[in-house]
């Protein structure tokens, strides 16, 4: 099942394909009723599972409240404080900046899953998700994925736990064409690929699997290392747009379950189609 070819992740969100997103379900006349879109993310904590976050970057707005990292040793892992935590690449700061831009009052926690030795990557992701579930985090952004078939069952179990613990796991689809990327392919996460409309508030719902939501991910101005900014393209930068919007949603409806949150998100989508 996991070896079948997946289509081009972003294909449903391309200009010439977007007519295919026309809504046939119960919400087709309902796109303007999203009161939650004006919320600020107040009272919501968003975890960024990535390369670390530079809390001093202006784009993060001083909202980074904690830096953690996953320590992997002898096939097991543990989430520990990341003393003097920083971003080892720039990617996590980019995601944090996008989320802060959309949900300025949300608090941000970074869990760094990349280490300079590049060890135990998939396992580190799993431990980070586990931490988010255990700490009842309402929104977690994962602009990373693993293609490790060995971790298929582990991720499957974890994302179901997240779903029932009301932890919205926002996962970017891999940019790597044709391979399943975990956990983004599971239906209990919020999977995201990129579109090219330069607007952080324009997003799409795709009723056909595997990717459910499309957000801006092409030529996005993002924060990077050392206070710098770059223009970047990738599904990695689409996911935090949806995470930021979900922080707004959770701020307006703290008790919304993942099912309800996805439904509200789908209902507010496709305005820019």
């Amino acid at each position, binding site marked *: 099942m996991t070896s079948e070819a997946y289509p*081009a992740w*972003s294909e449903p969100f*391309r200009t010439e394909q977007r007519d295919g997103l026309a809504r046939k379900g119960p919400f087709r006349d309902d796109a303007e009723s999203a009161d939650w879109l004006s919320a600020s993310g107040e009272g919501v904590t968003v975890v960024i599972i990535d*390369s670390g976050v530079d809390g001093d970057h202006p784009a993060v707005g001083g909202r980074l409240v904690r830096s953690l990292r996953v320590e992997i040793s002898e096939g097991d892992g543990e989430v520990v404080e990341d003393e003097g935590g920083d971003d*080892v*690449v*720039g*990617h996590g700061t980019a995601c944090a900046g996008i989320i802060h831009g959309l949900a300025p009052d949300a608090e941000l926690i970074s869990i760094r899953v*990349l*280490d*300079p*030795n*590049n060890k135990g*990557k*998939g396992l580190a992701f799993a431990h980070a998700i586990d931490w988010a579930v255990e700490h009842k985090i309402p929104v977690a952004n994962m*602009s*990373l*994925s*693993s*293609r*490790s*078939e*060995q971790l298929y069952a582990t991720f499957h179990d974890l994302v179901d736990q997240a779903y029932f613990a009301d932890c919205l796991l926002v996962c*970017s689809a*891999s*940019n*790597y*064409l*044709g*391979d399943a990327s975990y956990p983004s392919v599971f239906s209990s996460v919020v999977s995201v690929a*990129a579109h*090219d409309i330069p607007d952080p508030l324009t997003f799409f719902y795709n009723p056909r699997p595997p990717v459910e939501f499309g957000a801006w*991910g*092409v*030529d996005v101005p993002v924060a*990077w*290392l*050392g206070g*710098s*900014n*770059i*223009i*970047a*393209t*990738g599904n*990695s930068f689409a996911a935090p747009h949806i995470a930021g919007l979900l922080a707004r949603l959770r701020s307006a409806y703290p008790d919304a379950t993942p099912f309800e949150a996805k439904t509200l998100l789908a209902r507010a989508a496709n305005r820019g189609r």
Partner: protein
Amino acid sequence: MVKGGSRDLSSDALAILREIAVRGETAVRLDTDPEMALLRTIVDATVGIFAAEAASIALLDEASGNLRFVVAAGAQGQPVVGMTIGPTQGIAGYVFSTGESIAMADPAQDPRFGRNVADQTGYVPRSLLALPLEDGARTLGVLEVIDKRDGPFTIQDIETVTLFARQAATAIKVSARARDLRAVLADVLRSADDSASDAAVDELVSAATRRRSHDDRFWAFVDAIATMRHVSVSDRDLAIELLAVIGRHRTAGGRDSSGRLRSLRR
């Protein structure tokens, strides 16, 4: 047959395994490197498709854990060949360590990129696309494309280059497998006996591939022959003649080298 390790194999069988291992390693050393030729074709094609200034492939060096740029194409590509970077360093390191591809405009804005690549090569790119070369869940290296002629890289460009990356990864995987004589030998031994324990197979493989110290000169000799790939045809002919002379000299018990040299000139 394998179960008890080398003790259960006849000395003849072990000698044959040793001979296979020696011949295999000799073949590897003399190989003209079809893997590199294919990788070069891939970077050439990538540059052609995007009319890019450069394309390059960096591979993981298993020994050091670093990434080493092994091939490049395009006007600005050559300076990176031979360069080594850390596995999480710069854009290539990010792509390698996360397995995520990325396209960037003005990548020199990234301070790490500026310091480690652009400064060393003297070239500051306007746009960059980098993809992982993946073998299943394992990342083998990174394919980078710099400065597409027509504007920034798109998501569709990422998907197009993914096809090249996949081809490159397959080439590397197949080639690496063929080169890893220990792995090939272990596969053969396991296929001969499903119940063989890993330890027993390891012991046999070690027995067959163990090098004795006095073999060092033999490998130096093989390496010297390998360098002949790069010399002219006439130099190669000369080397063949010299080897023939030495061979005959040894056969004759080393009695009269000057006479045999004279007879060669005849």
